[in-house]
């Protein structure tokens, strides 16, 4: 089967609905809005730190991109379109990989643009290529994770709820639980991703069992496990 053909088809699918546009607008409002507000209210000497300027895209923008990614799968299950897809490309592994690649590329490029734009809006140090790269990588992995979650759950409502609650509510809550927080915290996937991108949010600082690179490898491993489970499930079940 043609890998290029499957990728091309998924690219056409993504850009012939309005969801990428709406997601892009929502992410831009969240990212640039938070960057601008923080820049206005910054105290002390010097401009806003780039890590703080990028908080909007990292904390709220990436989950929106994750929702967009999971919808590329769950929307097809809702309309029955997934059957048309599997009839055109019977290799289901190829279908899901193509969806993940297209979602990750879109999320990665858009996240990179948003980090750069946030830094510009906040008038922070513009030479933060490390930060741009880190958040891009995080957004790409998160999109692959979201495609896997979408394929496992099939229902949009469930996938959206999980993808919002997991990074924004469940992990910060577990991380901040008295006593348990310090034991569970180092193994929370999104807490690890935030160590890697150096954006401070609701996670307290723990002694991580691995360094920043180890943290993103850990997040990538979690993503790979979820995505592999999704591949096994879609190949087994009747469409």
């Amino acid at each position: 089967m043609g890998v290029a053909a499957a990728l091309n088809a998924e690219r056409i699918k993504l850009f012939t609905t309005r969801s990428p546009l709406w997601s892009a607008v929502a992410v831009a409002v969240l990212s640039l809005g938070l960057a601008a507000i923080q820049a206005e209210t910054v105290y002390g000497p010097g401009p806003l730190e780039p890590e703080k300027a990028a908080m909007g895209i990292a904390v709220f923008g990436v989950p929106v991109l994750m929702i967009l990614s999971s919808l590329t799968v769950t929307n097809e299950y809702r309309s029955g379109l997934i059957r048309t897809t599997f009839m055109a490309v019977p290799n289901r592994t190829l279908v899901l990989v193509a969806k993940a690649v297209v979602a990750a590329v879109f999320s990665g490029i858009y996240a990179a643009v948003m980090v750069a734009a946030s830094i510009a809006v906040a008038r922070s140090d513009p030479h933060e290529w490390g930060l741009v790269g880190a958040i891009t990588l995080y957004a790409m992995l998160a999109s692959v994770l979201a495609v896997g979650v979408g394929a496992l759950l099939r229902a949009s409502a469930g996938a959206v709820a999980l993808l919002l609650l997991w990074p924004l509510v469940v992990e910060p809550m577990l991380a901040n639980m008295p006593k348990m927080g310090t034991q569970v915290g180092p193994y929370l996937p999104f807490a690890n991703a935030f160590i890697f991108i150096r954006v401070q949010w609701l996670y307290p600082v723990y002694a991580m069992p691995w360094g920043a690179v180890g943290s993103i490898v850990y997040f990538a491993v979690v993503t790979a496990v979820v995505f592999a489970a999704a591949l096994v499930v879609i190949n087994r079940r009747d469409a």
Partner: protein
Amino acid sequence: MGVMIELAGLTKVFGSTRAVDGLTCSIEPGMVTGFLGPNGAGKTTTMRMILGLDRPTSGTATIDGKSYRELADPLRHVGALLDAKQVHPNRSVRAHLQWIAATNRLSAARVDEVLDMVGLTAVAGNRAGTLSLGMSQRLGIAASLLGDPPVLLFDEPVNGLDPEGIRWVRTLMRSLAGEGRTVFVSSHLLAEMSNTADRLVVIGRGKLIASTTVTEFVGRADSVRVRSPQLDLLRQVLTEAGIAVDDDQAALALLVRGAASEVVGELAAKNGITLHELSSQQGSLEDAYMKLTDDAVQYRAVT
């Protein structure tokens, strides 16, 4: 050379239900084969297994000797319409066909060609969700024709269509078969199939009931109604000639099965029997179908 669909012991079990039960038959090229059975008989499940969507519990479904999943660029081999509402409601009609074409490396020009074939060129820019059922059906058929495949499967393609739409689908299926393609069409309406199909595969409760030509199936169901003042003598004559006879209690007439009205008339004349009526029964086709599938209807209203 045409391409055959072959089912061998095809079986699908959902929990304790045998939705498709040991189906063996072949569907031949150059003709329309009707796939007939009451609702819930397993027609859709069978088609889904042919298309590699559902995994058979046992048995095989092959196209040109290969399972669907083994076909490279399957849309160039098989086109199918399962459910006309299988579209993204906000994607345009043309874009819907464009992504399908892209999966099998079919040209953009082909998209315009099939749009033209089904008469949707004027609404190509409209969102697929705004189409009427008839137009959605045409879009589904356009998608099935994209790869110019030698094999076509349609699941209840005329359901919910107006008379003009029905005639269009019927003509299309006839012409596709006329081009030497294998056309497999499911329906729960016998009358529809007797107009369109050359052969019939009849199933009930997942089991094969008949695989035969329409002419033979109709002949099997043919009956002649005879009224006569010498009914007993007529019955005796017909029975001696080896012809099956039923009593029609209400009208004091005989229903003769498996013999044309000419045969009955000539037998009566030879024996000097007066006839008051000699007529072929039009409704008997439906009756025969009902009788055949009677035990096989899974759900029915209690009357």
